[in-house]
């Protein structure tokens, strides 16, 4: 008996009914593994093809990305071969490839060296080169870092921090080190080259007008400095106009000096003097990635460019690309090699007018040089412009060159083109999502049988006969479905009816559109059923097209849903930052099911055009409670409405007196939280202007960090009936918001968390938690009367204390005791009962660090709300509300409490893998979790984004409104058939028996 009770209580603690089945993987969820937008500004981090192997070769595209990831991508299909995610603060400075190893330097000044196996991404070595706190912060970050491989063996020569050279073996042990500890010279060494006998470190020092070249010669065996000299030179563009070209042991430093190309042969005694290439003037030199093979490119003043080759110890011009015409953009150059190691150089010129890119590939080893030219169509309207290209070539037969190009675009996409064939596209800007929201799709309505106005008898007969011919098919389908068919269950795939072009929802509303906008000027509509991109649009720059600029989406509002009758619409509020530093606020209004522009009076030419609302930055924006009108505030707190129609103004004027909102404003150099209200003063302005009504008095040592408004969702119950038949009424103040403040100084190192009413600024709840390392890494969630937050507790000296991750859950109830009711949801903001609130609070130890928190949301709010947590070890967990009930008793559970389904308080939230929604998927660096209701009350959709995208659906109270997936139709059929057979067998028996009874008794 006792055992039974124990088992049942265990089942209460670990409800496994909601756990995943292996067959659900990829059916109810999807995961998009992303790497981030490639860093194309420098060749030290830009994408590059690399081929490994002798006979059978494998190639990968290696790149460092803006999401601080080093990634290898398979060129065949565009999938991620491997990726290494660096921590924040340990930014990738540069990576260097050699055979089947890639080495990266990261952190300030290149503080950490890591080497990876190029094909499987295994970390071979991780070595701290110098303390990050001693690192020099150079701009760009690859400055002062370099890695060279020893000509023999597997040793590495590492240059970091602009002058610290070390030779390391493959276990990370330093064989020797050299430090250019000469603070007066101010030389920043940026390149290191090895020959069999010597190591050359090449650097620049700043002179008043330009840069001067310095070379240090070290012995390769001992690291002894044999020569340190400055070369008389004047390089204006610094490192951009300097490169090192080598071929075997012949090393040349090449630089551009006032339009002329100069070079210097490096020798141990540095006795040679700089030589100038005779002839034309050049404006820049380009490292195409073939410097190890003695080739590079220099662009002339007229736009044409020359390929140079290291021949002996001199430079030789071997080819000239002609200048691109006016209609094409500046060319992009890239070098590549084939299986045998022969070098190729490509020039990619993209044309906006022709909507295509022209590629010229120069092959040096065939005859006296062969040029292959082709064009490929490049869709500027959806991918912007080409920012980078990298080349890979094969030479299948004599005089045939097949090349493939991996290009990176200004919208953050990576594409692979094999000649003019498009192979794949990776939309890497999805790793930088700024705003995202679920939008419901319309239902497909069959409208084929609507009769015409006047139909004669003959016409009707004809129509009905026509329609009836489908009947046998329908009947057959019906019988089949009745007898054998499986029904759509909560765990089946969301299959929507076939549709030509237009997307429709499935039976349960699992298929919705996730509209996401990225700072790479792109907005996507993602199908929530499978993660495919339904549509994508590029933001137009408006008047800033002439000068260039960028669009940063700030807010996304759903202004029209399918329940309003028409197609669903969203409004994106964005800041446009033009190159001439002007900032404007622009609104884009689109149809969420197709991506079409629905802003009245705006016509798209190529890209999505917006409506300029404020000629200046946006301070804050809201959507009015009717979900139709967007309100925006400019710097002078003037109110702008979108759409700016008479109805919108009228409804806003009606609402204005009851609008209260908090704003972060600077008062005397301090950020303060000020409550605002809007009013119209016709004498001063024709617009409504916000004016302060209250200021939150927080201590001057605290600074506002995060402001989290309560999420407004349908509330099904206003109270909680306890085991003793009393009721706790939920405190449901719709104006409540959570506020997090961070300490300005390290002392006192604590973060404060407030729950504030936005109409009066009354503090409803306040706590302070320790700031670990002076940083407030607190994540909060506020829904209904339930507030939960996460923090890290570093204190351990007290009795019974321990360092660890904490999850705190707070519930607010009306009044000071049970059965006390203040009707908080309808209470006036100025009622004295507003502060009549009691709180229940409990803290738990959480096994992992947390990056984002959210709660599930359902259509009517009847299902319990689970907490969805994204952890630092790349998982998405769901924690049942019952585990986080702050009223869990700290003693034996009484019968009354058992009736309430309360469980005994256990400080540790167990790490139950069956509650991992993301199971085997690695969902990295989640920044936000968005939840949305499906049409089924039991089910909530969950979308998490950060570096990766992840979608799943959860049923916190189990799927009570659909047939359970465990429902066994087979069993039912077998039982019913069995009973029927039993009846058939027993009926004659019973009949016979009765007859006998009548005769013989």
């Amino acid at each position, binding site marked *: 008996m006792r055992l039974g009770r124990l088992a049942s209580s265990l089942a209460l603690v670990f409800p*496994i009914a909601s*756990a*995943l*089945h*292996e*067959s659900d993987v990829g059916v109810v969820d999807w995961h998009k593994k992303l790497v981030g937008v490639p860093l194309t500004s420098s060749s030290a981090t830009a994408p590059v093809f690399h081929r490994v192997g002798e006979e059978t070769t494998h190639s990968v595209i290696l790149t460092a990305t803006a999401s601080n990831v080093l990634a290898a991508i398979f060129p065949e299909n565009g999938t991620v071969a491997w990726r*290494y995610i660096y*921590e924040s603060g340990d930014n990738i400075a540069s990576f260097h490839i050699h055979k089947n190893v890639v080495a990266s330097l990261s952190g300030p000044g290149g503080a950490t060296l*890591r080497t990876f*196996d190029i094909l*499987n991404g*295994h*970390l*071979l*070595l*991780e*070595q*701290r080169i*110098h*303390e990050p706190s*001693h690192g020099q912060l150079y701009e760009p970050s690859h400055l002062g870092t370099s890695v060279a491989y020893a000509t023999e063996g597997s040793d590495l020569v590492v240059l970091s921090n602009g002058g*610290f050279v070390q030779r390391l073996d493959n276990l990370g042990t330093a064989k020797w080190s050299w*430090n250019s*500890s000469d603070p007066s010279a101010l030389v920043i060494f940026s390149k290191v080259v090895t020959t069999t006998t010597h190591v050359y470190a090449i650097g620049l020092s700043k002179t008043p007008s330009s840069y001067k070249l310095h070379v240090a010669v070290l012995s390769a065996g001992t690291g002894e400095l044999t020569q340190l000299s400055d070369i008389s030179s004047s390089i204006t563009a610094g490192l951009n106009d300097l490169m090192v070209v080598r071929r075997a042991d012949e090393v040349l430093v090449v630089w551009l000096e006032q339009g002329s190309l100069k070079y210097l042969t490096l020798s141990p005694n540095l006795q040679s003097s700089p030589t100038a290439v005779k002839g034309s003037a050049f404006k820049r030199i380009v490292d195409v990635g073939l410097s190890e093979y003695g080739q590079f490119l220099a662009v002339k003043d007229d736009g044409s460019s020359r390929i140079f080759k290291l021949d002996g110890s001199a430079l030789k011009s071997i080819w000239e690309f002609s200048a691109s015409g006016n209609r094409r953009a500046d060319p992009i150059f890239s070098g590549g090699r084939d299986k045998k190691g022969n070098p190729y150089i490509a020039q990619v010129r993209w044309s906006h007018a022709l909507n295509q890119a022209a590629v010229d590939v120069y092959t040096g080893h065939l005859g006296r040089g062969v040029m292959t030219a082709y064009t490929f169509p490049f869709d500027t309207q959806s991918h912007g412009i080409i920012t980078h290209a990298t080349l890979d070539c094969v030479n299948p037969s004599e005089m045939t060159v097949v090349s493939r190009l991996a290009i990176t675009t200004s919208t953050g996409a990576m594409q692979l083109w094999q000649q003019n064939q498009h192979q794949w596209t990776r939309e890497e800007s999805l790793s930088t999502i700024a705003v995202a929201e679920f939008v419901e799709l319309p239902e497909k309505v069959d409208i084929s049988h609507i009769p015409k106005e006047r139909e004669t008898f003959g016409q009707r007969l004809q129509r009905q006969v026509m329609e009836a011919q489908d009947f046998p098919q329908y009947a057959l389908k019906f019988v089949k479905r009745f007898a054998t068919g499986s029904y759509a269950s909560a765990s089946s795939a969301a299959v929507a009816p076939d549709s030509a072009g237009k997307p429709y929802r499935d039976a349960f509303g699992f298929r919705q559109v996730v509209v996401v906008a990225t700072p790479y000027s792109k907005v996507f509509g993602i199908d929530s059923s499978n993660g495919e991109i339904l549509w994508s649009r590029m933001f137009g720059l408006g008047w800033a097209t002439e000068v260039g600029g960028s669009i940063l989406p700030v807010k996304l509002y759903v202004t029209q849903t399918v329940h309003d009758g028409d197609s669903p619409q969203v409004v994106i509020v964005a800041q446009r930052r033009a190159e001439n530093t002007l900032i404007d606020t622009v609104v884009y209004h689109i149809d969420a099911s197709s991506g079409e522009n629905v802003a009245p009076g705006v016509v798209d030419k190529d890209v999505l055009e917006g409506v300029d609302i404020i000629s200046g930055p946006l301070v804050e924006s809201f959507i009015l409670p009717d979900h139709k009108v967007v309100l925006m505030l400019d710097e002078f707190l003037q109110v702008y409405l979108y759409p700016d129609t008479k109805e919108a103004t009228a409804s806003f004027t009606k609402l204005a007196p009851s609008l209260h909102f908090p704003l972060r404003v600077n008062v005397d150099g301090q950020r303060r939280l000020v409550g605002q209200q809007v009013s119209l003063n016709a004498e001063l302005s024709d617009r409504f202007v916000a004016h302060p009504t209250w200021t939150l008095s927080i201590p001057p040592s605290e600074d506002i960090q995060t402001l989290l408004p309560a999420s407004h969702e349908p509330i099904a119950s206003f109270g909680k009936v306890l085991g003793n038949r009393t009721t706790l009424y939920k405190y449901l103040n719709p104006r409540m918001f959570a506020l997090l403040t961070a300490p300005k100084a390290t002392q006192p190192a604590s973060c404060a968390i407030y729950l504030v009413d936005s109409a009066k600024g009354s503090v409803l709840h306040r706590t302070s938690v320790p700031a*670990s390392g002076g940083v407030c*890494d607190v994540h909060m969630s506020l829904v209904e009367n339930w507030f939960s937050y996460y923090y*890290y507790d570093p204190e*351990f*000296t007290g*009795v*019974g*204390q*321990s*360092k*660890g*991750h904490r999850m705190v859950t707070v519930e607010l109830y009306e009044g000071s005791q049970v059965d006390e009711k203040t009707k908080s949801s309808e209470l006036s903001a100025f009622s004295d009962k507003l502060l009549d609130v009691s709180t229940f609070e409990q803290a738990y130890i959480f*096994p992992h*660090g947390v990056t984002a928190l959210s709660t599930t949301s359902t259509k009517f709010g009847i299902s319990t709300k689970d907490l969805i947590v994204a952890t*630092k*070890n790349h998982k998405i967990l769901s924690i049942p509300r019952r585990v986080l009930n702050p009223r869990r008793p700290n003693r034996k559970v009484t019968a009354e409490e058992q009736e309430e389904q309360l469980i005994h308080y256990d*400080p*540790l939230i167990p*790490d139950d*893998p*069956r509650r*991992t929604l993301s*199971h*085997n998927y*690695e969902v990295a660096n989640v920044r936000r979790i968005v939840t949305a209701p499906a049409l089924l009350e039991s089910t909530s959709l969950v979308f998490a984004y950060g570096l990766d995208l992840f979608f799943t659906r959860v049923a916190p109270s189990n799927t009570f409104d659909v047939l359970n997936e*465990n429902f*066994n139709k087979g*069993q039912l059929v*077998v039982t019913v058939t069995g009973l029927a057979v*039993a009846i058939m*067998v*027993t009926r004659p*028996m019973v009949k016979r*028996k009765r007859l006998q*009874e009548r005769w013989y*008794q």
Partner: protein
Amino acid sequence: MVPWIASLLLLGWLRIVIAFAVKGDILWNDICPGPEKLGRSKVVLDEGKYYGGIQQDGKFTIPGVPAGTYVLSVSTHDFIFDQLRVDILNTTPPVIEMHPYIPGTPLNPPSSVILPHPISLVARQKHNYFVAHESFSLLAMFKNPMMMIMLVTAVMAIGTPYLMKNMDPEALEEMRASQAKIASAQSAFATGDFKSSISALMSDEPAAMPQPQPKAGPAQNKSRSNKNKRR
């Protein structure tokens, strides 16, 4: 015994910095046989300010850790490792002490067990994220106790008449009598006449049937009512 290791990094700018490096390795076992299975993992101190990646050979180094007390854990996706308490004492020579630590227990006082540094860690468990489907099999269905009871009842219902037929008439009579007794007791219970029901059970003789009250109709045996009618 492997001695403790503290790395002394002498860097430029004429500054001497003493930083401690916590070192160790992951020993591959049946649960986690190699770096492919382990995936990207790192060893972190506290909430992750100090960390070190796990190399292909299982080794890790957490560099630049100042003196203090930390909780060491392995941040990995699929496996569970033990947590440790790490004490770095700022003495000369510096000492790194490692103690076992169970999450959810107080950190102080440390466990009296001191583990060697560099430390060796092994995977304790692999996460299983899935539950198996309840599969349908006829055998499993009939193993269900409810189904078994149903089956037995069915067999009884079908088999009893045949059993009765083959029984000795005397034994049959005896059984009839006892059945009648039980039936009468049952009907008496149903009508609330406990006294007569108990007496009916107690008496050896087949007692006279207590007159059933009109309400107790359903409790009556159908075949008997037929018999009455005929009389």
